[in-house]
């Protein structure tokens, strides 16, 4: 509704979804807060949190937005051999493999510059890399399922899929990251 520019119109159109997404994000926050002890004992891990959430959410939203466009253009088939689907999934994995270890390295370097050497460089990069690989699987599964569901329910994937996938990937980003932290530290 780009023509609707009244305060009331904009708020009415967006507020309910914002509240729903906030409640879902609070679940991620509760999980995060449950690990506050380990995160404050190793502030490098706390430093990693926004980066992990941002990359996980962005991977999901970029993939969802590209699948939605392919769907609108009629070039998307929900089969593992479909070019658009398989190609975008492969790109998601490639992006995860490049970006997550880099985020880990950057977070470690930033904390190292502040004199924090509580965790080894390799440990932090490995935690970020393993979280990233698992999150790429999650992002592909969620984005594909949500686009397919929008298609089945005859909803416009642009309206629904991107916010839902971004939020789900944010929350699962926290869950997966803390799972890997629990196994590694």
């Amino acid at each position: 509704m780009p023509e609707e520019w009244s305060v009331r119109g904009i708020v009415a159109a967006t507020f309910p979804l914002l509240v729903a997404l906030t409640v879902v994000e609070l679940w991620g926050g509760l999980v995060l807060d449950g690990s506050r002890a380990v995160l404050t004992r190793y502030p490098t891990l706390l430093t990693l949190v926004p980066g992990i959430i941002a990359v996980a959410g962005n991977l999901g939203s970029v993939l969802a937005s590209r699948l939605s466009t392919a769907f609108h253009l009629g070039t998307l088939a929900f089969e593992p051999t479909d070019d658009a689907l398989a190609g975008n999934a492969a790109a998601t994995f490639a992006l995860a493999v490049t970006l997550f270890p880099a985020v880990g390295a950057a977070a470690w370097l930033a904390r190292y510059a502040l004199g924090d050497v509580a965790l080894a460089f390799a440990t932090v990069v490995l935690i970020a890399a393993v979280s990233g690989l698992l999150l790429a699987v999650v992002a592909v599964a969620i984005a594909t399922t949500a686009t397919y569901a929008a298609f089945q329910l005859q909803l416009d994937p642009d309206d629904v899929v991107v916010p839902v996938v971004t939020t789900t990937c944010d929350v699962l980003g926290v869950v997966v990251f803390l799972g890997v932290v629990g196994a590694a530290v």
Partner: protein
Amino acid sequence: MTIRAVAEDAYREAFGILVLSAAASVFSGVVLGGMERELAVVPGLLTLVPALLATRGSVYGSLGARLATGLHQGLVEPELGVPDERVQSAVAAAMLNGVVVSAVAAVVGFGIRRALDLPVAPLAALLVVALVAGVLSGAGLTLVVIVTVFVGFRRGLNPDALAGPVVTTTGDVVGIATMLAGARLAIAAGVV
């Protein structure tokens, strides 16, 4: 297109903005990593972090997208001095959404932690954090979004391609920094 061509295309398109966003998030992570004291003194503060950051992204990302659409349609003039009525409405709606949804996050977050018998700061403290962060980050991000989208449009750039990246790169930093300001204010005011 072959699978490989699609993959290369998708990778190239997304890489730059993802790197920018990741770099900015690591920067906000450094601020979060230094908040041990606030997180200990205001139990429940960490619960609000993902919700408040996500709210910034959705509300001001959507403001940017709306302004970009308005510029394309000729509904909005890229005038920084006296913004027209549509821009004022879009900004007022975004600020209202951003501040009220932040307050909702504080109330619901407090309620859930209470219900689960988890340690939590007084509701007033979480509300101070949410409202201070909501108002300050709203003002900051509104300014950043309007200036980037309008100036970019006047220089012939596509505002649609600017709005998203600007919010993803500045949103987390502004979000965490203003939460820290809110937490310090709550502690200084003695509401914790």
